[in-house]
């Protein structure tokens, strides 16, 4: 485990943190109405009378949201509950026209599971999932248009959400970050949530408390709401934990409370105490009977599940010989993994991985291009690697070919042909150059024979220069060593 211990002159403290993550379900229509889930449309366009909470309107569950939830549950290695129940969570706020949210309470659709996260010190850790339930999203309020009014847009109201609740297993901000990245990667692989934290389609609340290192107590916690990036979540957890330590060491106590994270300052800010504001008076939703799933429905989803990041990573290590680190970088998102697999098909996978993680990623970064807009296709990159493997060009020339491909999207073979960069592998042709170099530098030949072995590199350089970089370096080395004795 990567250690995160808050140490002060007065003592050592440990973080205890759990997360609740809301993931918007990918579906065309809302969870209980036929209105569109499209993001970014004009205000209140994608709203039905059901979403607006008009009297007498009845919710009808979207089967796709159920399918997506089951899929996600399987991706979390979790128990799928064949029997689940919708409940009303009552609260009064401008973003909820019904005066309640339809959610699940005692009987969620997904039970306990776990996600394994990889940490920077090379270890991994299981984070346990407590449950996942489905519910409706609230409307979006806009506070900065009018100084006296809040504006409410119900387009988001009623979009399906999956709320994933973890056990309080996090002991460091790093674990929080690794978990969020892993979860995002899983839902993106599954296609059940787009995982865009900055657009709010994945939102994170963190429950944070601290305790003296070595103790097992659970102290009062603060809940930091709606953090919208992985980095901010890590910052919020670290700041809040340190704030609490300071509080305790000053002899104060923490009262259970809700905070907001301010990305500009990196600080958490007190919002309100949790008193009876959290008295939600849950009761079973009278408009929806219990949700009962049959085995066939679950098995069909299980059998059609895509290969998840962990399984893909394990396969890349076992079958393609990649290092665990390289495999996890390539598997973080499905598009990169697919690109790699296409490029590596029938080739030396390690070489292809090195090209992708080195020059190729650097090129995309420099051009600020997403993978799908890459000027170099997976297939062409693979063929470039072929040219090296078949000794048509050497590694150094390959970098020049790559640079041209990045600009022109040309075929690597065509570039090599056009530029006359084909490597000379004809030993007699190289030998002629080697002889010429040795004859014109008798001093260095004598010095080498006298023990200056590091001059070999200089000779190689001279031969490469004479051949305009096309000589095969292995053959050059071999001939030089032979002739210099």
């Amino acid at each position: 485990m990567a250690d995160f211990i808050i140490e002060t002159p007065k003592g050592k403290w440990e973080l205890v943190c759990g997360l609740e993550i809301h993931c918007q379900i990918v579906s065309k229509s809302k969870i209980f109405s036929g209105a569109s889930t499209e993001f970014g449309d004009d205000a209140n366009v994608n709203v039905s009378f059901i979403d607006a909470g008009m009297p007498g309107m009845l919710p009808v569950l979207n089967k796709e949201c159920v399918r997506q939830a089951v899929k996600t549950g399987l991706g979390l290695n979790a128990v799928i509950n064949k029997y689940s129940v919708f409940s009303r969570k009552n609260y009064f706020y401008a973003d909820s026209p019904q005066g309640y949210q339809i959610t699940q309470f005692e009987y969620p659709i997904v039970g306990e599971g776990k996600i394994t996260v990889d940490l920077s010190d090379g270890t991994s850790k299981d984070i346990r999932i407590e449950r996942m339930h489905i519910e409706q999203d609230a409307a979006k309020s806009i506070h900065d248009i009018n100084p006296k009014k809040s504006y409410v847009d119900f387009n988001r109201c009623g979009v399906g959400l999956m709320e994933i609740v973890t056990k309080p297993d996090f002991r460091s901000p790093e674990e929080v970050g690794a978990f969020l990245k892993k979860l995002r990667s899983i839902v993106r692989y599954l296609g059940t949530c787009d995982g865009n934290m900055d657009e709010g389609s994945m939102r994170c609340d963190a429950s944070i408390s601290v305790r003296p290192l070595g103790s097992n107590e659970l102290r009062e916690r603060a809940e930091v709401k709606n953090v919208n990036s992985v980095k901010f979540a890590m910052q919020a957890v670290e700041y809040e934990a340190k704030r609490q330590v300071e509080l305790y060491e000053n002899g104060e106590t923490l009262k259970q409370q809700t905070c907001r994270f301010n990305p500009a300052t990196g600080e958490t800010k007190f919002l309100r105490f949790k008193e009876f504001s959290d008295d939600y008076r849950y009761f079973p939703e009278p408009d929806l009977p219990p949700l009962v799933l049959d085995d066939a429905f679950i098995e069909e989803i299980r059998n059609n599940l895509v290969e998840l990041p962990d399984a893909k990573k394990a396969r890349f290590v076992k079958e393609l010989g990649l290092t665990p680190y390289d495999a996890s970088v390539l598997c973080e998102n499905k598009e990169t993994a697919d690109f790699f697999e296409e490029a590596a098909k029938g080739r030396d996978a390690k070489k292809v991985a090195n090209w992708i993680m080195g020059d190729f990623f650097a090129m995309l970064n420099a051009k600020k291009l997403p993978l799908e807009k890459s000027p170099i296709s997976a297939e062409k990159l693979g063929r470039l690697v072929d040219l090296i493997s078949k000794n048509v060009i050497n590694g150094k020339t390959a970098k020049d070919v790559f640079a041209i491909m990045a600009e022109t999207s040309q075929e690597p073979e065509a570039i090599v042909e056009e530029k006359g960069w084909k490597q000379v592998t004809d030993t007699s042709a190289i030998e002629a150059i080697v002889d010429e170099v040795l004859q014109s530098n008798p001093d260095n030949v004598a010095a080498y024979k006298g023990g200056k072995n590091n001059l070999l590199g200089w000779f190689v350089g001279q031969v490469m220069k004479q051949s305009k970089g096309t000589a095969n370096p292995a053959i050059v080395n071999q001939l030089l060593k032979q002739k210099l004795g």
Partner: protein
Amino acid sequence: MAVDSKTVQKVALLAKLKVDDDKVEATKDEFNKILKWIEQLDEVETQGVEPLVSVNEEHLVCREDKVTDGNIKDEILANAPESEFGYFAVPKVVE
């Protein structure tokens, strides 16, 4: 189980209902009468019985994922006490 005046005030607050101070006592008595009536159910043996969430024996019927509704902005906003730029305009609720 009996409720006290404090509970009455709390329930009123949660329900966003105003109960005048001089009505609290009377409301409390009414609550307790109702509760007492319902307490008859305590006579039923419920040990080991799962809570009943619905008297409807039918299972949930689902819809297919199709966009069949929406695009009725004017009707949605028709009953709003106030709307501007296509939004509902409500008293400031920023935290």
